[in-house]
C-alpha cells in the first residue's frame, strides 16, 4: 500500500473510520505493552465475549480485518518506520477481532539466526493462519500462545478455513 493508493482508498466510505481505528489500535497496543506484561495486556485487549446473533457477521469482520491490517502495515512501515512491525500490528488486530467476537489466537515464534535470533508474532483462527503468509513462519517454533487453547463454534469453522487462505499484500 503506497501513499497514493492509500489516499485514494481513504476517500471511500467507511475507510476513514477503519483507518482511525488502526491508529487508535496501535496507540492502545503501545501503551498497554509499555505498562503491562504480555499475558495481562492480551487479556485486557481481548475483552472476550461470546458471539451473539446481533454481532457483526464473521465475514464482514474478516474483510475489515484484512483492510485494517493493510492500514496497520502502512502506519508502522511508512509513518512510524519501525523495523519490527509484527508485534504492535498483531496486538491491534487481535484486539479488533476479539472485540467483534472473532476468537483469534495470538502466537509468538522464535528461531535462531546465526548467532542471533528471529522472532515473529501472528494470529490464527481455528488452527489456520489468520491474515498471515505461511512463508513468514518458516523455521519458527511457537514459544507463546494466547489463549492456550480455544473451542471454535461450528458456524465459525468455515470462516476460519476461508480466512486461513487469505494472503494479504503488505
Amino acid at each position, binding site marked *: 500500500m503506497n501513499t497514493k493508493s492509500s489516499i485514494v482508498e481513504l476517500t471511500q466510505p467507511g475507510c476513514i473510520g477503519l483507518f482511525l481505528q488502526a491508529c487508535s489500535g496501535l496507540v492502545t497496543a503501545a501503551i498497554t*505493552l509499555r505498562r503491562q506484561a*504480555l499475558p495481562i495486556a492480551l487479556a485486557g485487549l481481548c475483552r472476550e465475549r461470546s458471539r451473539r446473533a446481533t454481532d457483526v457477521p464473521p465475514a464482514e469482520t474478516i474483510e475489515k480485518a484484512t483492510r485494517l491490517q493493510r492500514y496497520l502495515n502502512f502506519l508502522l512501515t511508512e509513518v512510524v518506520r519501525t523495523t519490527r512491525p509484527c508485534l504492535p500490528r498483531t496486538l491491534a488486530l487481535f484486539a479488533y477481532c476479539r472485540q467483534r467476537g472473532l476468537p483469534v489466537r495470538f502466537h509468538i515464534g522464535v*528461531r535462531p539466526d546465526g548467532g542471533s535470533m528471529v522472532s515473529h508474532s501472528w494470529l490464527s483462527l481455528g488452527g489456520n493462519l489468520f491474515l498471515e503468509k505461511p512463508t513468514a513462519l518458516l523455521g519458527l*517454533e511457537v*514459544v*507463546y500462545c494466547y489463549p492456550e487453547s480455544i473451542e471454535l463454534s461450528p458456524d465459525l469453522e468455515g470462516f476460519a478455513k476461508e480466512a486461513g487462505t487469505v494472503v494479504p499484500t503488505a
Partner: protein
Amino acid sequence: MIDLTCSSFARATNVTWRTFDGNSILLHLESGVYYTLNPAGTLIWELLDRRIAGQDLLTVLRDRYSVEEEEARRDLVDLLEEFAREGLISIHEHEIKYR
C-alpha cells in the same frame, strides 16, 4: 554474590522458551526481552525446571563439562546472577536449623 551452598533456584513462572540444537531462546513475558542460551546455559536452564540446590547444579555442570570445581562455580554463579538480575529465576535461601 550468590552462595551456592545455601541457596536453591527455580525458574520464574513468566518465562517461556524453546530449544534449538542445544541452544535455547527465552522470552520474558513481562519485559518482552529475549535471551539466548548456549548449550551449557540450556543445561542449567533445564535443571531449573524444579527448585534445585546450587550445589546440585554445580555437581551436574562439573561432571558434564569435566571442569575444575572453582571454574564451574565461577561460571555458574555468573550465570545465576544474570538470570536473577533479569528476573528469569527465583532464589530461595535454605532454612538454617538451630539445635
